[in-house]
């Protein structure tokens, strides 16, 4: 009985190790293709010295520098406004008892399901009216109020003892000061968790920038990568496309390598409300 079970669990372990290996194959293969000279790329058995030629080719043929800048502007701009708004709203929902609370909360709940990405068509028409189509702020604005962020803030604010607030009130602190001087410093882990989720969402977003932006110099990385890849329909240029993909995914991948635990915890936190 016992030996049969250990065999079963051994098989399970072997299968899962193989699955993990299989999961790594796409990444390893792409990185290899990016660093290997073009004519050797298709021959998996030859060992060749790595080269950066593909990367220089990519960087000279497409403005990845400006794509990077745009993505960073979008990600940081969105996050800064989100921080501000979710802290205020999160405090109200966590600590204040007010008329209309439940209705408001339910309305925010709708945004968890109907994210701006689903509403690309009506939102785009709205952006045209606001004269924000084909601009970077146009990409950011629909995401400024984050229901997910508000829920995260509310949940974590509630776990902070209320005595702290009472004490601050006794000393004559205003609500504004209580939020930013008492709570905000204590919410740092929540800010980190929300940042990782928000940054990776907006770094990776594609469909919305695709419909919003026409100009080459306003494209974020994902859009730039897609356009770059589409320029080559035939298979011969895969070395360049792999190099471009590496350029786009490297920052998030490195952050993930160094902060694996925080990353996984943040994603888990933001999902389980």
């Amino acid at each position, binding site marked *: 009985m016992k030996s049969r079970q250990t065999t079963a669990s051994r098989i399970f372990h072997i299968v899962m190790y193989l699955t993990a290996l299989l999961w790594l194959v796409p990444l390893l293969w792409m990185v290899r*293709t990016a660093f290997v000279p073009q004519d050797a790329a298709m021959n998996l058995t030859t060992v060749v010295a790595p080269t950066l030629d593909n990367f220089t080719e990519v960087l000279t043929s497409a403005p990845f520098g400006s794509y990077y800048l745009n993505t960073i502007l979008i990600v940081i701009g969105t996050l800064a406004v989100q921080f501000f708004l979710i802290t205020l709203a999160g405090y109200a929902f966590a600590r204040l008892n007010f008329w209309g609370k439940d209705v408001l909360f339910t309305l925010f709940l709708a945004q968890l399901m109907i994210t701006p990405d689903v509403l690309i068509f009506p939102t785009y028409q709205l952006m045209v009216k606001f004269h924000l189509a084909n601009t970077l702020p146009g990409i950011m604005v629909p995401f400024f*109020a984050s229901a997910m962020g508000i829920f995260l803030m509310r949940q974590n604010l509630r776990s902070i003892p209320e005595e702290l607030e009472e004490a601050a009130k006794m000393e004559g602190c205003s609500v504004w000061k209580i939020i930013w001087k008492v709570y905000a410093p204590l919410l740092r882990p929540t800010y980190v968790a929300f940042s990782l989720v928000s940054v990776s969402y907006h770094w990776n977003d594609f469909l919305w920038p695709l419909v919003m932006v026409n100009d080459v110099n306003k494209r974020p990385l994902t859009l730039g990568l897609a356009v770059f890849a589409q320029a080559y329909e035939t298979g011969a240029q895969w070395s360049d496309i792999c190099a471009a993909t590496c350029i786009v995914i490297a920052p998030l991948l490195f952050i993930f390598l160094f902060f694996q635990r925080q990353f996984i915890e943040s994603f888990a936190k933001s999902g389980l409300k």
Partner: protein
Amino acid sequence: MKSSLRLNFAEGFCGKREVAMNHKPLKLKKKAVATLTAWALVLPSFIFLCVFTLYPIAQTLFGSLFSESLSQIHAAFAGVQNYINLFQDEVFLRAFWNNLIVALITVPVDIILATAMAVFTNTVKHGKWLVRLAFFYPVILPMIAAANIWLFIYTPQYGLVGMLNSSWNLLGTPSTVLPAIIVMLVWKQSGYFMIFYLSGLQNISKEVYEAAKMDGAGSFRIFRSITWPLLRPITLFSFIIALTDSYKMVDYLYLMTDGGPNNSSNMLLYYIYQTGFNFWDIGKASTITSILVVLLLLISTVSFFRQDKRIVYS
């Protein structure tokens, strides 16, 4: 004695009433102040919510009742005609069906794989760090980058799969395009659900397992009778997220198939993109958006009531 007691009682009653009378306006005032403060704090978020979520939803539901396109510049009231046309539109039905197939296959596969990954990552002794990395890294890649990698993998002659058999053109063949996409989606997303199962596993107390082991239960039995039932809330939650994500994530179509060949990989959101931004059929795009919105709201409402019974919010 008796009367004094009565007096006491009356005093107590009156006293209480007095306090209550004094208190009520105070309480009301307190709540009014709280309401003003709260609304001032929530207002900035609420304005953005109204403008970019609630108004577009209302506008798209309303707009779906009008026909407006490049050939018909002035919107004309059409009633439910847009919906009738849509359900006779083969591409729409195809996209609807494709979405359903992809959801029905990826959701259970994601959940089963995620559970296996979590159980494995939780117990593995060698290379835990690397295993977790392997399972989770696809989650943080942009969908469009994942699409690029898998487009390469599936490319005849040049790609990994293409090298196995040069006559295979998985993305270019109507019968294999959806399975090929499903494989990519499972690779991309199952790690995401693994982390929920991981945190779920860590919440199960060790004593339960020890007790089960004392009773002589094997590891499969323990999994079936303890772990899996206790992870039920996580499974429900993952089910909802996986289901809605399968409708929201369609970026890969832009690079991999453009909905083809012959619409055999088209999906609802991508069809919205095509009708809205390639053909500028405003009435039709609004109608498909409305259907998608209603679908997602339905899923979330059902899940909300089911979750409410099971998950105890902390």
